[in-house]
């Protein structure tokens, strides 16, 4: 089967976006989008794990039998997460201090597992790698966007502490949007996560409707 990489990219970034269309990975989405920087960090860590686990499952898919595929997928995702966690702690310690608390949360994310089942289990290695990567980037974009909305309304800043995550060169990203010292607190608290994510999902569907596209509905999330 000829692989259409453009579709893979489009699906990952927009059409079938992990958060905005498939509504998967809601647990880290709610927990880590209190600021744009946090959302971005969580997204990047997830994208790495997704690309690696998609690659592995696509490589070994001939050997994984139907009946035990789910335990094997979970094993692979968990192993990748632990691997990333240990390696970053040892050799990228500054980054780890900022990202470290996000990484174990990736195991609770259903999006990597979903892509293994839906894509990597059926497709060749390279398309699977691309799918994991672009689904991960789409996830990152969605989390950064939700984080930005919550941060602007909730704290009155945008990309606060970006220089802690990305290095001093990114200090310019840090913005103070509102002159007030604090914003609408509820947006930082858990309800704000549901509000922001809900409006973004609606927004995406409205844009799709206007563009005359059929609304893509992902598989119902049986886990979040």
């Amino acid at each position, binding site marked *: 089967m000829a692989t259409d990489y453009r579709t893979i990219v489009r699906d990952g970034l927009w059409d079938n976006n992990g958060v905005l269309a498939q509504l998967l990975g809601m647990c880290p989405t709610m927990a880590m989008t209190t600021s744009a920087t946090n959302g971005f960090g969580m997204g990047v860590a997830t994208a790495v794990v997704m690309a690696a686990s998609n690659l592995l499952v696509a490589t070994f898919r001939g050997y994984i039998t139907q009946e035990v595929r789910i335990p094997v997928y979970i094993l692979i995702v968990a192993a990748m997460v632990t691997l990333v966690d240990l390696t970053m702690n040892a050799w990228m310690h500054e980054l780890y201090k900022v990202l470290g608390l996000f990484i174990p949360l990736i195991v609770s994310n259903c999006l990597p597992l979903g892509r293994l089942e839906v894509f990597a289990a059926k497709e060749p290695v390279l398309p699977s790698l691309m799918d994991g990567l672009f689904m991960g980037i789409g996830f990152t974009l969605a989390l950064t966007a939700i984080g930005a909305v919550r941060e602007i309304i909730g704290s009155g800043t945008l990309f606060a502490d970006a220089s802690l995550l990305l290095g001093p060169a990114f200090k310019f990203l840090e913005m103070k949007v509102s002159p007030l010292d604090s914003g609408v607190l509820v947006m*930082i608290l858990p309800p704000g996560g549901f509000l922001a994510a809900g409006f973004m999902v609606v927004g995406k569907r409205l844009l799709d409707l206007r563009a005359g596209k059929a609304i893509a509905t992902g598989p119902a999330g049986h886990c979040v």
Partner: protein
Amino acid sequence: MTTQPTWLHAAVLGAFCTGFGAILALTDVLTADAIAARALEDKQNSLAQVIPPGLHDNNPVTDAITLTGEHGKPLTVYRATKGGKVTGVAYEILGSGYAGEIRLMLGVDAEGRVLGVRATQHKETPGLGDKIDPAKGDWITRFSGLSLDLPPKDKWKVKKDGGQFDQFSGATITPRGVVGAVREGLAFFASHRPQMVEVR
């Protein structure tokens, strides 16, 4: 689809578990030393923030004693010495915040004055309670130079409780927990001073 025998599934799952288990064990062995070194550096860095480097000619991380802290738990006290005399100590104090425990490192000089306080671990609300983090505000630096008598004991509270310490907008519980923890930490120093500054 032909049915595969059960043993095959068991073998597949077992093989993957063994394989990834081995990879993880290998990674753990390869990274263990580096991770331990990083943890030591972190501890050194957090100690350096609460004990000025000019105050000691030893390494406080390795020059530590263990005392019985509050509630009978062992408490590691890091000691800064200069010319054989103890010039300051640092130890961990706990405050109760809005979202669970706040762990802080408290540095005290030999006279019982605060050298510095730093939050080492907390889960306070981002944008509100996390202003105790020195990266996000200088609130935590206001303790330097204070002691159990300065301000007087009944002023060792946040303003809302009649004391002299500012709370920050939208968050009272976090500063209240930190102020209380520092006050208790100083009281602990006062009652254990002989053991802490004794030279061995």
